[in-house]
Structure formats: C-alpha cells, structure tokens
C-alpha cells in the first residue's frame, strides 16, 4: 500500500498522483502509438472506431458524468459535426479548418439548446435534448440541398495540407492525437474552478448554489464543451463511415453513447474510454449472438436496443459505478489486502430527494 505525503499544495491538482501513474500511462501511450505497427488493417479500423466512440463518449461524459445532466440527444451533435464537416469539405474548405468549424458549430447549437433548458431542473434538459435530436433528424431529411436528405451524402477522404489520407493507420493517428488532446483538455478543465463547479452541481445543486456557483452558467458551459467534443467526434466519424445518412444518427446512437458512459463508469474519464471498448466488444458479440439465436428473435430490429437497455438497467441497479468502479474496488481490495472492509464502497440509502418546495 502506497502512502502519499503532501509536500506541496499543487500536489492536489497534479495529473500524475505518483510514479505509478507516470509509468503505466507512459506504457499505455507507447502501446497505442505502436498499435498500427503490430495490427493489420482490419483491427486498426476497429480501433479507430472505438477511439471515435471514446471521443463522443468523453463529450457526453462532460455533461452527464461530470455535471449530472442527462442528454438523450448527443447523436444529434455528432450528426451536426459530421454534416457540417462533410458540407464544408464539399465547399473546398481544407480539413484542418473545417473540422474545428464543425466542432464549434455543434457547440453553438448546443449552447442554443442549453440556454432555455438550463433555467429549469435537469429534467428539462433531458427532454429538450431528446426533442432536439428528433428535430435535427427531421432537419437533415428535409434540408436536401446541404445534407442530401434520405439519399445520404458521400464524404471526401481527409487531406492534410494537400496530402490525401487513405491508409487506415494514418487516419488512426489523426483520431488518436485528437482524442489525447481532448482528454488533456477535459482533465485540465476538471481541475479548474469550472470543473469543480460542474462536479458540485452533479452532487447537489442546492449546496452548489449555496456556495455561490452560478448554476445556469455552469450547466450551459458544460453543455457547450460537451457539444464541441461530440461534434469533433462526429466530424471524425464522417470520414470513418464515408457515407452519411440520417438514420445513422438516430436515437439508437444516443442510447449507445449513454450505455458507453454508464457501463464504463459515470463520472470518470476512464469510464468513457472503457465504455467505448466495451461497446465495441458488445457489438461484436451481438452479431455473433444473432447467428446463434433462433431467427424469430435473432432478426428482430429491436434486439440490439433491447439488449442495450437490459445491460443499462442491470448496471444502473447493481453497479452504478460501472466497470471502472468495479476496477477501483478490486484495486482497493488488493492494495489494502488483509484490511479491506466490505462496506468501504457501500451505497448510502437515502430518502427521495425532492426538488419541489412545499
């Protein structure tokens, strides 16, 4: 068991709490950078997909995991990012400009949704985001001059300063670098006053407000940030799938993102990454399961969302901390080996928390 001595105030906000962090994360970094060397194209492609999901999940994590506001419309931000990026590319805007513009567009739209909704309880944001996702899907279908409507829209391959990128490993590195930058950004925000305010709102709006945190402003900023990251993921996703159509970004994708962060571990950056990997595994196992099930059940279009729903229910009831929470428990058990107590992570029973004044 490691005992940390505090010798400096800055120690509280350091990224790497002790040498173990430096060692293991450096090892992970080396592994992900060397991955395309060791793997063939198929696996590099799959890994790219997982990293894009992780980026989108990170976006949702900011608003749901850290600020406690559930968004059921994050697929719409991916859609906005993807379509804006693809449209700008057809207009001849270079990749390096069009991707940030797409992310920012998504962020500004997010701002427009969050401002009216954030004045009320978080519930309104949830319903507004759900309605917003439907409105965006409808808009994509009807705004044919830009989005191609139901016919869909082809996406040009990315080009960096005139050099066109076709190989899977080249695109993998672009996604990886952007993901690492986004993770650093989120971690940095988390240790800033804004990040602390977000966590405080998640844990108790009333105590946060009593401490002088401006609820509406913090929620709106969190939503803005979240929409930017998810929009960025959308832009990257556009190149990955190479062909955009409205049904790609339906409610199923929103649920998938939510599943990712809940199963991975709500409220941790690790959770978004873990969740993305688990979703990748889950998709693969569902397609295997489909062959194995009787066709009456296996070919159901509702099977996949139904299974996602089932997994979500089980995690919310039995392990709301997700896989990462489970890992933390295991680690604590090993670190404090003979002294681990079963009640260390016991969930507190509490009464219904009312949001109404009576």
């Amino acid at each position, binding site marked *: 068991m490691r005992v940390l001595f505090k010798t400096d105030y800055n120690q509280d906000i350091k990224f790497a709490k002790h040498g173990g962090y430096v060692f293991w994360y450096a090892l992970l970094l080396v592994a992900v950078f060397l991955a395309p060397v060791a793997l063939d194209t198929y696996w590099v492609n799959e890994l790219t997909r997982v990293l894009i999901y992780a980026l989108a999940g990170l976006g949702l994590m900011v608003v749901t995991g850290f600020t*406690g506001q*559930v968004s059921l419309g994050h697929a719409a931000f991916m859609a906005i990012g993807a379509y804006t990026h693809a449209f700008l590319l057809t207009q001849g805007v270079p990749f390096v400009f069009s991707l940030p513009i797409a992310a920012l567009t998504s962020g500004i739209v997010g701002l427009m949704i969050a401002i009216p909704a954030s*004045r009320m309880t*978080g519930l309104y944001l949830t*319903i507004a985001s759900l309605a917003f996702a439907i409105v965006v899907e409808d808009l994509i279908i009807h705004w044919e001059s830009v989005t191609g409507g139901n016919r869909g829209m082809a996406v040009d391959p990315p080009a960096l300063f005139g050099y066109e990128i076709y190989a899977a490993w080249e695109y993998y590195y672009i996604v990886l670098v952007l993901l690492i930058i986004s993770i650093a950004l989120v971690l940095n925000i988390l240790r800033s006053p804004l990040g602390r305010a977000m966590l405080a709102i998640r844990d108790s709006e009333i105590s946060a407000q009593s401490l002088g945190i401006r609820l509406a402003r913090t929620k709106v900023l969190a939503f803005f940030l979240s929409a930017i990251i998810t929009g960025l993921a959308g832009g990257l996703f556009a190149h990955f799938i190479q062909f955009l159509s409205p049904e790609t970004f339906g409610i199923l994708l929103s649920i998938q993102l939510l599943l990712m962060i809940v199963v991975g571990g709500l409220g941790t950056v690790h959770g978004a990454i873990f969740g993305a990997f688990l979703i990748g595994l889950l998709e693969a196992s569902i397609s295997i399961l489909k062959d194995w099930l009787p066709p009456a059940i296996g070919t159901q279009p509702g099977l996949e969302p139904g299974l996602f729903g089932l997994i979500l229910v089980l995690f919310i009831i039995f392990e709301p901390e997700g896989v990462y929470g489970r890992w933390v428990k295991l680690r604590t058990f090993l670190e404090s080996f003979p002294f681990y107590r079963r009640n260390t992570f016991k969930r507190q029973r509490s009464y*219904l928390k009312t949001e109404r004044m009576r």
Partner: protein
Amino acid sequence: MAEFFQLLIIGLSQGCVYGLIAMGFVMIYKATEMVNFAQGDIMMVGTFVAFTFIVTWGFNFWLGLLAAMAVMAVFGFLVDAIVVRRIIGQPQFSVVILTISLGFIFRAVAGMIWGQAPLSLDTPFVGTSNMGGAVIGHDRLAIMGGTVVMVSLIYLFLRYSRWGIAMQAASQNQLAAFYVGIPVKLVYSGVWGLAAAISCVAGVLLAPITLIGPLNGFLGIKAFAAAVIGGFGSLPGALIGGLIIGIAEPFAAAYLPEVKNIIGYLIMFAVLMLRPEGLFATIYQKKV
C-alpha cells in the same frame, strides 16, 4: 370553415391521446418524482395486450379493454415494485437512464411477441358523421369522449377515494405521509399501475387511427413535450399541453408541411424560452 372545423376535431382527438399519456407521466412524477420515460412504451404494450384479448382471444371489446387495463395496472405495479423502487434516492439521472432503458426493453420484447408488422384493432366506433360540412370519424369522437370520461374518473378518484387522497398526500410529502400511516411504497406502485392503465386506454382509443406497432411508443416523446408545455407536475396542464400539440399538428400539416413532424417540439422550445416554468407552474425552488 368546414376545413378548419375538421382540422380542429382531428387535432383535439390527437391531443386528447397525448394529454392522457402525459397525465400518466405527470401522475408518476408528482407522486414519486421519477420521470417515467417508458410511458409511451407502456402504452404500446397496453395496446398489444388489448389486441391479444380482443382479437386473438375474441373477447367483447369492452370486456377486453377492462381486462387489458387490469393487466396493465398489474404490469405497472410490478415494474415499480420490482425494478424502479430499487433506485429511489439515487440521483435523477439514474432514474432517467433506467426508465428509458426499460422502454427499449419493452419495445424489443413486444416486437418479439407480436411482431413488427402493424396490427389493426377493431373498435365499435366505426363510421363517420357529417357536421357542418366536416366529416368526423366516430373513432375521433370516441377518443374525445373517452378522454372526458377518463379525466373525470381520475379527478373523482384523486379527490374522493381513500387511495386517491393517500396518493396526493404521498406526492406532497413522502415522509409526512409515511408518519401518518400511509403505506408509501404500496401507494407508489399503485400510482405506476394507475398510470399504466390510463395509458392503456389512450393506446386503445388511438389504435383505429395509427394501427398497432412496437414503434408506437415514440408517441410518448410528444407526451413529454406536452407535459413540459403544461408545466410538469400539473395534471390539467398536461392535458392542455397535449391539446395544444395535438391541435398544432394537423394545422401545421395543412398550412406548413415542412414542420409537421416537429411542430410540437418547436412549441415546447418556444415555451421553454418564454415561460420556462410552463403554463401551469408547479415546480418551485427548494428552500433549505
């Protein structure tokens, strides 16, 4: 004028259905402060159950409807007693994620049992009447009549019956209700059962117009919009919100076809901008 009247009737009847679903949803919210995102899917399951009774097993329509309501009441009761009750006291987002996932499970299971192809449920309300040049289907009139009956029954139940008053008490203050001897857990599950039965009626009334399919549950999203417009937590507000969305839809389809699918949400966003607490506000800031 006749066209206006026709659109109005279509809108009113559609709005009644939204209003009924929204009322079930608001009832659960008022009593337990849980937002049931599966309400639309519970309605869908209720319609399928009624279909099984009436069409597959050949029950009389009214008997089948009553049987379906009873089954759905038990279903709603069990959903709360077995699943949802476990997360009371957990943060709001757990409830949201839990109920929306339940909705997806119901949809998948309903698809497996009853199939994806739309089914039709015959009701006794067939034929049309001519009123001042407008052709009004009897199924539409049945929806409006059914809603009036349901709303009056709910009002009488909540106002005068022992259980209704217990529900009101539990929704006002859980702890105080518990202290005066109200079985709060039972009342909560009862509210879920009641809400499920109401949605079942809404679904059956709507069945001749939309046909029955596992995706009907998405109608619930419009009911949320209705509840937000009405001011979340107000039963009359939910009904009026439903009527507003219902009436706006056929008029949008006739005069502004581009927005016909999303007009309800646009109204909701407008209400959130101008009067975020809804038309009939019931949520206040909590005092510490």
